[in-house]
């Protein structure tokens, strides 16, 4: 075995069932992409339910959507885009072996993630105050735009808010998991585990983070931007 034709120097990072670091990196990346494929289907089911009910109760969805805060939604989108930038830069810093910069950028990502969750929590609290949480205390006393006498059926508005909480809630759960992943990455970076040859955890953790960002990129227009011009 020792005089195998593939003479590879086995570093502690290279698992024995891989021929070289590049193959190991590609395998890890492919595994993450497969997982993200399942995540697309997971969120896809909720997006599908959303589309079906939006087509069925378009006016109710539009009125309910307008009760969400557009400035807060836009700011939160920007916060996530900033976090994606710091992730991308941290992967680059790891590729270049700039260990301190990796830690700084990972910490920044974590802070952006927490800021997003904080803003989201503030929004959810507002929904509580307004009784827009689906359930027995749900109340929705809004009329069709331009028709003050035509009240919205609260049951249909409740479907919008059920989907809103299911989708933003699942997204927030992914953010919380992402914050946990990045806390571990910061710890590993702190211990000097990442080198230009080996930084796969930063890379695939980054893929996960970007995916969660993409989910929000779709949630923002679908939930916040229905019929905003009325």
């Amino acid at each position, binding site marked *: 075995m020792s005089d195998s034709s593939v003479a590879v120097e086995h570093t502690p990072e290279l698992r024995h069932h891989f021929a070289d*670091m*590049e193959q190991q*990196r*590609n395998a890890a*990346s*492919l595994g993450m*992409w*497969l997982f*993200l*494929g399942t995540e*697309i*289907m997971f969120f*896809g*089911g909720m*997006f*599908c339910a959303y*589309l*079906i*009910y939006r*087509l*069925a109760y378009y006016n109710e969805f539009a009125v309910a959507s307008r009760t969400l805060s*557009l400035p807060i939604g*836009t700011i939160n*989108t*920007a916060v996530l*885009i*900033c976090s*994606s*930038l710091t*992730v*991308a*830069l941290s992967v*680059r810093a790891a*590729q*270049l072996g700039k260990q301190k910069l990796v830690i700084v950028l990972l910490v920044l990502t974590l802070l952006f993630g927490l800021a997003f969750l904080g803003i989201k929590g503030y929004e959810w609290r507002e929904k509580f105050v307004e009784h827009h949480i689906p359930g027995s205390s749900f109340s929705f006393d809004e009329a069709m735009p331009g028709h003050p006498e035509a009240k919205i059926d609260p049951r249909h508005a409740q479907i919008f808010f059920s989907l809103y909480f299911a989708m933003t809630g699942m997204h927030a759960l992914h953010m919380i998991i992402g914050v946990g992943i990045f806390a571990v990455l910061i710890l590993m970076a702190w211990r000097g585990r990442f080198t*230009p*040859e080996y930084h796969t955890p930063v890379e695939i953790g*980054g*893929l996960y983070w*970007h995916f969660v*960002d*993409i989910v929000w*990129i*779709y949630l*923002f*227009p*679908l939930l916040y*931007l*229905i*019929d*905003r*011009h*009325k």
Partner: protein
Amino acid sequence: MAEHILSSKLYWAIWAILICLTVVTALVARVDLGWFNPVAALLIATGKATIVVLFFMHVKYTSEKLTTMVIVSALFWLLILLALSLADYSTRPIS
């Protein structure tokens, strides 16, 4: 090492485009374009998602065809889910 290291300038440019598109989509939603409003919102979102995948997630620079195949098939399955479900629900009333 076949790894492609992009310049930080490129990442900042992508970030600027994404922020601009976010502002644009919020502003466009305030203009009455009729049926084009949701189309514009989804086109902008898809544009943003595409550049995140290509540049931030390095898919444009990957030599691994398997990655591309996984992404394309995942999107194809999503299309099946959405197209067949909507074809069903949009052609009969919800009771």
